[in-house]
């Protein structure tokens, strides 16, 4: 198993879809969907995320690995699978920005874990608050690039928590990587400085809401 896992990571870092698919096929994912995700895909993505945090793997590989895993998982765990739908309603958005890479990475990694979430795309504060309330979203992930947008999350959190004190907001993006107190000052429930943290925070929030 360890040998397969190392080879799977290697294939992902080399952006070799075919090799990654062949390694995964040995686990018979169609019969053991969640086990395959938990034992092979998730640890691989976590390891790649950890290596990025340490400066050993570049963001391009993190993105491409997430995309490949998302495609692979979609083949044996389609979006409508009951294994995906039995979870709190979740959404992801970028606040005031068209730089979508961070959101795309987290979205792929969460979907590769079998978590289904709505993608609100690029939105302003009012749109984000309205869509979240209308969609009865319980866990909201917000990605930003600029410090000004990060600070606007404070208003988003205040308005959403006024409407539903139990809603969970997870934030991520460059400003939060460079200031480790910023997520607290904007009133978020958690920060995901990398894919591993974002995934961990999402699972923790899911448990808290279950």
């Amino acid at each position, binding site marked *: 198993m360890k040998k397969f896992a190392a080879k799977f990571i290697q294939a992902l870092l080399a*952006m070799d879809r075919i090799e990654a698919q062949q390694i995964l096929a040995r686990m018979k994912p169609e019969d053991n969907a969640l086990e395959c995700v938990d034992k092979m895909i998730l640890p691989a993505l976590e390891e790649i995320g950890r290596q990025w945090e340490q*400066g050993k*793997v*570049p*963001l*391009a*590989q993190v*993105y*491409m690995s997430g995309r490949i895993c998302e495609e692979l998982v979609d083949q044996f765990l389609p979006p409508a699978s009951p294994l995906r739908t039995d979870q709190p309603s979740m959404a992801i958005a970028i606040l*005031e*920005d*068209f*730089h*979508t*890479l961070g959101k*795309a990475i987290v979205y792929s990694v969460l979907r590769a874990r079998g978590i289904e979430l709505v993608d609100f795309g*690029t939105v302003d504060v009012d749109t984000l608050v309205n869509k979240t309330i209308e969609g009865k979203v319980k866990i909201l992930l917000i990605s930003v*690039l*600029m*410090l*000004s*947008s990060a*600070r606007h999350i404070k208003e988003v959190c205040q308005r959403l928590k006024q409407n539903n004190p139990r809603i969970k907001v997870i934030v991520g993006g*460059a*400003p939060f990587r*460079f*200031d480790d*107190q*910023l997520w607290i000052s904007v009133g978020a429930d958690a920060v995901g400085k990398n894919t591993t943290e974002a995934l961990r925070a999402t699972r923790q929030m899911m448990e808290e809401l279950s």
Partner: protein
Amino acid sequence: MTKPAMTSLQRVLTSLGHQEADRVPFFLLLTMHGARELGLSIKDYFSQAENVAEGQLRMRAKYGHDCYYPFFYAPVEIEAWGGEVIYHDDGPPNTGRPFLADPARIKQLHVPDVASTPCLKKVTRAIEIIKKQMPDEAPIIGVVMSPFSLPVMQMGFPAYLNLMFEQPELFWQLMQINEDFCVAWANAQLAAGATAICYFDPVSSPTIISKSDYQKMGREIARCTVARINGPTATHLASGRCLPIIDDLATTGTAVIGVSNLESLAEIKGACRGRLSILGNLNGIEMARWTPEQTTQKVREAIAAAGEGGGFILSDSHGEIPWQVSDDILKNISEAVHLWGQYPLRTEL
């Protein structure tokens, strides 16, 4: 004993020659703060070259830093290609929806004519005004996005990475088009009076792509582009890491690298010594909430790590100080450099 005072230009050139000047030079890379000086909204401020020139002149008079930085905003180049710019009241103008999301459109893409593009003419006009008023007193820094990094705004990052790794032919076609634009735009700023060009290339950082991919793409593109720019260049990785590619960066023809607070300044200095000068690396995001004591401490630490022997310009790590950084903090930085940056350096921390 302190050294005789120099002009900013002399100070910067001495440091770039890997010698100790009278004090450590420092660049406050301020773009939006000029609007605050003039009592204008950010959008109104950038609507006229005269505003930006006046803002730059006033800010340097106020903080005593060692450059003019008439850089408007990153998507000014996207505007030149017909893309959208979105203004904010409390942050830099940002690029709108990518205009080149469909890679098939690369085949129909034409290089904008720099001389007749209004948004670019505003920038060159601002440079001309500063140059006329303060000739050769302090360097005027022009800015270009590298051909390799511009597609992040042209296409959006995910689409660009897909292009880079899955459609190499179209990728190289885009690089050639972008290189021609980058060279024309850099040379127009130099002709207007810019002293040097800051070549922003964050995608080349090992934070974003692997060293081997950089060697195949970003480095080769930089070598070709920098060689065609008619003046000195500084390569800025905009908060990205640089240590693994310093040897490669040194072969691109650049004289300076803008470095991140994610890496040790002392280690970077050791790797660059005598080959490249360093620009950096105060944390601009954290800076917004620094106390005066923290500010002084951060400045002292940076100077202690990289000041000795020259080859160092103190600056932020991103190439643009956020709007949220207050006037008081900027003054604190300036005071700390003037106190702790005098050569020969005081060694105690």
